[in-house]
């Protein structure tokens, strides 16, 4: 494995989808670095959304991977909620990195002034951290009908793929935790 050259790993990674790439990216440092490869994500993006794009079109997208992430989360338009308080039940269906069980609930309060408060209550600690009761705060952008939740502290390399339930609606989404610590993690659920 150590003698196996990067170019060939990239070649075999080109046959994988984004979930498997994310899984690989959190196995170790070498894979992490390889998964940042621009070409892998360009191809995925093109085949997922059927067009190519300009990377810097959106301010916070600095790579194809970032762009893929944004676009992917923006495609989830399954909720219909109004302002109010909601209990969101999150169930992890796949995950990686130093996160184990992120099942839990978070209370979601959408206020008229567009502010949002979301507290995630994690049922069990993550793999490398005993205490992971993360406090997430965020904003609800009515215009874009997008809810951005930032984890206020803590950075856990990894991701989880979850289902979230608000009222009777269930969506599946991906939480990527692979960005810089200062930026925190971000969960985007689009609300319609």
């Amino acid at each position, binding site marked *: 494995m150590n003698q196996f050259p990067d170019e060939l790993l990239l070649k*075999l*990674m080109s046959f994988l989808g984004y979930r498997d790439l994310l899984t690989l990216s959190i196995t170790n440092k070498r894979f992490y670095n390889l998964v940042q490869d621009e070409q892998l994500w360009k191809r995925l993006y093109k085949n997922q959304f059927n067009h190519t794009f300009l990377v810097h079109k959106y301010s916070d997208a600095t790579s194809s991977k970032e762009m893929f992430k944004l676009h992917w989360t923006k495609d989830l338009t399954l909720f219909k909620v109004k302002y109010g308080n909601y209990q969101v039940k999150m169930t992890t*269906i796949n995950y990686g990195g130093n996160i184990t069980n992120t*099942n839990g609930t978070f209370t979601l309060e959408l206020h008229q002034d567009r502010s949002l408060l979301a507290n995630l209550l994690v049922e069990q600690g993550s*793999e490398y951290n005993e205490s992971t009761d993360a406090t997430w705060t965020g904003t609800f952008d009515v215009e874009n009908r997008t809810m951005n939740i930032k984890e206020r502290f803590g950075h856990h390399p990894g991701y989880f793929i979850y289902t979230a339930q608000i009222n009777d609606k269930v969506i599946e989404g991906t939480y990527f935790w692979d960005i810089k*610590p200062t930026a925190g993690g971000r969960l985007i659920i689009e609300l319609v």
Partner: protein
Amino acid sequence: MATNVEETYLYSSPTTFKVSSKDGEIFDIDDSFINQSKTIKNMLNVLDIADNHMPIPLQNIKGTMLNAAIVFCKYHKNDLLSIPDDEDEDDFERDAYEPRRSDDISEWDKEFIKQFTVEEGTLFDIIMAANYLDIKALLAVGCKTIANMVRGKNSDQVRQMFNISYDPPGEGLNTPRNSVTSKESGDNQLLTTQEKESRCKTPSPELMYD
């Protein structure tokens, strides 16, 4: 394509050549191999080789891998006709956005590739051999096979499969809060099995799939 056929006949006498592996085994190769291995093809176009030539040394490839590659090419000798020879792997623009699928490995290829495993590292060896010899079909079968093994696994299972240990992605990127960041990969190698298990504990299934 007429030009390709002509090219093939440039070195068509003699029709077999000898090659020697890293470990000194000598093999006869024929057109089926020469036509599919771009590396050999290019070599033969450059070298002027007589009938009773010394074996061409392939210093990077073990005998077992070379033999397997020859078997593979013999079976696939007729496939070549449908693949345009001028397809350039380096043509990035054209290739860059092509979807890649790995569920199209033929039954024969599946059986063939079964002799190589990740555990023994032979699957990596055959891919590297295919890469060195520039046999596209074999390279693709090998890569697709590993890709298929990775698919659907979680990170612990992948680590187990590749026999690699957790190695924090590093400063400035993903620094876990109070954990093993200061450990370099070298340290990880020294962990006892028990320690490794505690770091990469396999979650219980009901947590993964609700």
